[in-house]
């Protein structure tokens, strides 16, 4: 739990992301996407039952009875309404048919570009990251991309990425401290979480930010739904 609050950072981020899906037609989540998994699940329960949920397994609208630790787990391929192959889901992205996608980056810069490739110094590879999976295609071709990142510091939020793995239609960036949106090609603060301050966000962001309203807190209904579904606290796995 966050000090003096009845929720955790993971829960706060999940709810903040779920609320972004109220008017979404469809949403895609990829590999290693635990927080988006819970956000989509919650959005379908509370705000948007018709939301079409796309994932790597290819099965549309999975109905997992409990949350998997892997977001490519075969549990997601059970009890869905229809099947596509993974290639066909990427084809949907290429055709511009994805409304919302969740992506993440190790480095995220003031333009909303992100790096999941590597960091080099003087032309020599210093750190190899995981690779961006589908993000190079998905980011510029989805209508609204939501980036989530469980770390908010100056190593993560940089002035300029040392390598651009993906760029494109950034809609929101959700962190444990704040929410950004993209305005005139730059990331600006959309809201600051109630348990942090503008000063703290400034000190942990590698580009200039200005004040913003407070992010609304999760409701007890949102929290209890999540906690009932996830009795093993898998939602905390990214922290």
């Amino acid at each position, binding site marked *: 739990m966050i000090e003096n609050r009845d929720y955790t950072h993971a829960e706060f981020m999940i709810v903040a992301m779920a609320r972004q899906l109220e008017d979404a037609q469809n949403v895609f989540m990829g590999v290693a996407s635990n927080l988006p998994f819970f956000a989509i699940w919650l959005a379908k329960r509370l705000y948007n039952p018709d939301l079409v949920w796309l994932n790597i397994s290819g099965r549309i609208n999975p109905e997992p009875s409990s949350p998997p630790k892997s977001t490519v787990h075969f549990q997601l391929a059970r009890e869905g309404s229809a099947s596509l192959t993974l290639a066909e889901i990427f084809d949907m992205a290429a055709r511009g048919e994805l409304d919302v996608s969740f992506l993440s980056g190790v480095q995220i810069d003031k333009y909303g570009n992100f790096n999941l490739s590597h960091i080099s110094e003087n032309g020599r590879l210093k750190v*190899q990251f995981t690779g961006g999976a589908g993000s*190079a295609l998905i980011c510029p071709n989805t209508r609204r991309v939501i980036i989530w990142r469980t770390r908010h510091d100056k190593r993560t939020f940089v002035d300029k990425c040392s390598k651009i793995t993906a760029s494109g239609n950034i809609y929101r960036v959700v962190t444990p401290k704040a929410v950004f949106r993209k305005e005139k090609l730059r990331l600006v603060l959309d809201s600051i979480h109630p348990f942090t301050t503008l000063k703290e966000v400034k000190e942990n962001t590698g580009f200039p930010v200005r004040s913003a309203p407070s992010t609304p807190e999760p409701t007890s209904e949102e929290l209890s739904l999540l906690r009932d579904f996830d009795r093993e606290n898998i939602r905390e796995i990214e922290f």
Partner: protein
Amino acid sequence: MGGLLLQRIPAAFARELARQRKKHLKVMKTAANYDFDLLCFAECVDEVAAGFVSFEAEFGFAPNFRRSVENGNVTFEEHSCYTVISALRAAAFGVPFMPVANLGESHIKDKFKRVSNPYGREKVLAVPAIEPDWAVLHVQKADEEGNAVIYGSHFEDVIMARAAKKIVLTAEKIVLSQEIKDEAQLAVIPGFKVEAVVEVPNGAAPGSCYPYYDYSPELVRRYLSLIDFEGLCQYLEHNNP
């Protein structure tokens, strides 16, 4: 190599490649972890082509892949998952390249040339065909001819089977042909391109093979706890994951 991350991967086949000290392999898949990490660890591969090489949040990054690329022993041809698929599709379709949609400012686009749309004015990225010598796939069931059934998600297995020159299958079970015929609509791998089919129960472990078994967090951690080449050799000798 078939499957994706820890789902229905040819893990036993990867261990056998390592045991036989195969060298200079080039491996590709959209998103990989255990099999590619192990092949890097065992110094079997020169090149990895993929969109993503890592475990997920439960286990963290793929340490041996990462180290091998950082110290220059392995070349990482970084793709987007879609450009892996496009390269395989071009091979499967018998054409030299596949045009693909806009990749924005991604550095991955710099690997590829652009061609003019002969029917319009714009330029389109062209991903060159990759025709693998082998597709190595782990399936639930195959007959002696290599006709094979896949249950659950196919990931890129079918595209790989179409794109490759030849196919090697490991199968949870080798069954009578009649059993495959009874499920012919699920038999997405026809036997005529299959060079070898080997019965390997638990062949995807420590990964999962729907609907028979889930991945084993204990076995994945056991693999990730190996710290040196000697440890890896002992791990491989026991011929279990």
